């Protein structure tokens, strides 16, 4: 069924059900097309969406089985990230279906010929798509390499860049560092003489804001204790009053727990 235009009052009645995804498809698309032009109804929806999230959050709590973690992570690991192969997969059944149609038409001799040809074309298509995908992958890698090299520079020359000098703390008196921060482009951290990390630990970079410390990213120094890296952090957090590097369990933590190794006030 296609979407039937609805007037404002009719849509208004349906927004609550739309917010929890409980409308049938035809009514849903009618509501959605009205929402695009009506700020009042969009505001009504925005006020109801948190109710949907809350309903998901109030279910009885159950601890997931311990073995599930490994299973879930292993399954993701063998899953390719979105690729271009899908288009070929979409073609193959279509070609096969085309071949079957010709057979059904009764011209079986001709059809056998065609089917063979379709098979050849399918194989050629597969090879061509593989090559195209490979080419795309290489271009993507090259672009990423260039972007990786350019990004720190972009931070350093940003009009809004700020430099925050970091001083080694008692646990790492010889260490020192500098953070360059551009709200629009990210953070570059450089540091030297950071002590080697014990196994299972990582350094974590924080912006201490007026509200709370915000995790900017994890930092692993090289063998000489040096760090020179871009942390892509363009969040909308408040202005930092200080920058700190702490030692934390691998993977990082939500709020700092370990010793501070580097600290600097952001003037």
């Amino acid at each position, binding site marked *: 069924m296609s979407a039937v235009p609805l007037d404002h009052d009719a849509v208004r009645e349906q927004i609550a059900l739309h917010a*929890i995804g409980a409308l049938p498809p035809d009514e849903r698309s009618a509501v959605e097309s009205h929402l695009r032009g009506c700020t009042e109804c969009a505001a009504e929806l925005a006020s109801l969406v948190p109710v949907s999230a809350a*309903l998901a*959050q109030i279910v009885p709590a*159950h601890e997931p089985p311990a073995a599930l973690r490994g299973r879930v992570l292993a399954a*993701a690991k063998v899953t390719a990230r979105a690729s271009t192969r899908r288009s070929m997969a979409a073609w193959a059944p279509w070609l096969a279906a085309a071949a079957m149609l010709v057979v059904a038409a009764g011209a079986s001799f001709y059809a056998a010929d065609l089917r063979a040809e379709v098979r050849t074309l399918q194989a050629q298509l597969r090879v061509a798509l593989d090559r195209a995908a490979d080419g795309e992958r290489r271009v993507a890698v090259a672009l990423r390499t260039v972007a990786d090299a350019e990004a720190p520079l972009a931070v350093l020359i940003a009009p809004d860049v700020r430099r925050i000098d970091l001083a080694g703390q008692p646990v790492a008196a010889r260490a020192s560092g500098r953070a360059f921060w551009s709200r629009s482009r990210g953070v570059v951290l450089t540091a030297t003489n950071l002590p080697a990390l014990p196994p299972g630990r990582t350094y974590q970079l924080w912006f201490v804001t007026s509200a709370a*410390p915000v995790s900017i990213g994890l930092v692993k120094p090289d063998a000489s204790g040096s760090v020179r890296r871009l942390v892509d952090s363009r969040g909308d957090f408040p202005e930092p009053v200080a920058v700190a590097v702490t030692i934390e369990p691998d993977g990082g933590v939500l709020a700092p727990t370990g010793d501070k190794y580097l600290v600097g006030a952001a003037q």
Partner: protein
Amino acid sequence: MWLAVLSTIADASAADSDRFALQRMVRGDHDALAEVYDRHARLLYSLALRIVGRQPDAEDVLQEVFTQVWRQAGRYDTSRGSVAGWLVMLTRSRALDRLRRERGEPPAADVDWAAIDVVDPGAGADLRLVTAEQAARIRAALEALPDAQRVPLELGYYEGLSQSAIAGRLGVPLGTIKTRMRQALLRLRDALAETAP
């Protein structure tokens, strides 16, 4: 002075870590997926279990969700809402799909959360989770609803039944079901608003 600030725990920091983890996934960092799992698996598993009812099915749902997150990390626009909100909606969507398959219905026949699977949660939609205090208030408000309103809402939200299926099951006219579900949701919204600072 900021030393005291440094020890404060903040939701903003968790949301920031999630966004950061998604960026790392795009670069192929599996540890980032593990981090997100550790932060949210308990809530997502509880939700999946509430919907599908059986432990093995809930486990399958979580596997589907995290595989999808891994695949689509780069396609989710984090400015549209919190990662946690996205995860919750993905989980509900996958779990409801499973129930529908069991009932012989096509996936997302009546509730199409797939629309938010990729990027767009819909005009004005804000996929943020509510605070623990707000959730407690909503739970109390839900329990305080008359059965006539609460039951249709729960059937729609946790079982993905269409309104006509709910009407059929409860032996109540369709129009009445719609009205009661709407009233229930508006009551819950009021409860949520009371906790707003």
